[in-house]
């Protein structure tokens, strides 16, 4: 995640609940980050709303495997609408991290293949940091929608809860992406 945040500047980033939001806030807290603390499964749909309303901005979603599985129908909506400015990064650790590492089913269901079948234009699966950086830079240049599935390890250390007040997250994000 740190490697990706280094490549981003003022793009809106929607970050799913659980470890992704906690980690992103710890690594680099920016007003362009929308941290989710609830509504699991909705990150891609929120990002889609932003992407449709702001077609000139690249919209990046930091999602998790449990989240994508919960809102899988949204992959179809995105595949059908084909927003060009939509980059969906999925950190896939094959577990529900914040609740005690219970297994998801992403070890057997390849989410980037589901996205491809649903109509995403570019999909990639990466394991190494250098591949991640290369593919993400490439997706920033290409017309989407794109999905970058990143296989990651289970988290060992909790970055701590998102401490910002939710209405403040909304206000700050809205001003930052105006």
């Amino acid at each position, binding site marked *: 995640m740190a490697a990706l945040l280094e490549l981003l500047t003022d793009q809106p980033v*929607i970050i799913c609940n659980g470890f992704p939001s906690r980690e992103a806030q710890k690594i680099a807290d920016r007003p362009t980050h929308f941290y989710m603390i609830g*509504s699991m499964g909705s990150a891609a749909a929120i990002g889609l709303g932003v992407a449709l309303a702001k077609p000139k901005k690249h919209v990046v979603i930091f999602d998790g495997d449990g989240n994508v599985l919960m809102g899988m129908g949204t992959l179809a909506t995105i595949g059908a609408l084909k927003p060009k400015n939509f980059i969906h990064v999925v950190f896939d650790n094959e577990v529900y991290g914040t609740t005690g590492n219970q297994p998801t089913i992403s070890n057997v269901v390849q989410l980037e293949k589901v996205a491809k079948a649903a109509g995403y234009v570019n999909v990639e699966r990466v394991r190494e940091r250098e591949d991640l950086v290369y593919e993400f830079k490439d997706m920033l240049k290409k017309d989407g929608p794109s999905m970058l599935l990143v296989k990651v390890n289970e988290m060992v250390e909790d970055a701590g809860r998102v401490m910002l007040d939710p209405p403040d997250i909304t206000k700050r994000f*809205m001003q930052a992406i105006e």
Partner: protein
Amino acid sequence: MIESDAFVQALQDIGVDFFTGVPDSILGGIIAELMERRLYTPAVREDEAVAMAAGAYMAGKIPAVLMQNSGLGTSLNTLISLNYIYRQPCILIVSWRGQGGKDAPEHLVMGEVMEPFLDTMKIPHRTLTEKTAVEDLRWLAETFMKQRIPVALLITKGVVKGLHP
């Protein structure tokens, strides 16, 4: 009976410029009119529509989500743990299936409990009538702006012209 185009125009006049949702027969005429005007983004589930509307709101739009009242059940967590706590307003245009106990069995329970359910969820609501339509729309716009939470306009059968008169 209110014409679908007049209803859509009234929503546009109060500033609504992003429409999504999941269809219902009662809303058929409205959705057809929205599609005609190229204003409608279809969703596959109501909670997805609500989340999409939240994103559009944060990107400067005034969103409306159309759904059958069964979709309120599907959207419950998103309405609470996204819209409500983050203060992201959204106009819900909800068809009232099962009103008065006259509908298919799957609609009867929600039809009966919908109003207390919305009260419990602290979602302000009002039922559209032809007589009070102007006032209803004004109430919708004011509540949306003031409270910054989801607000519901309930549509009963026959109030807005559907696809099949």
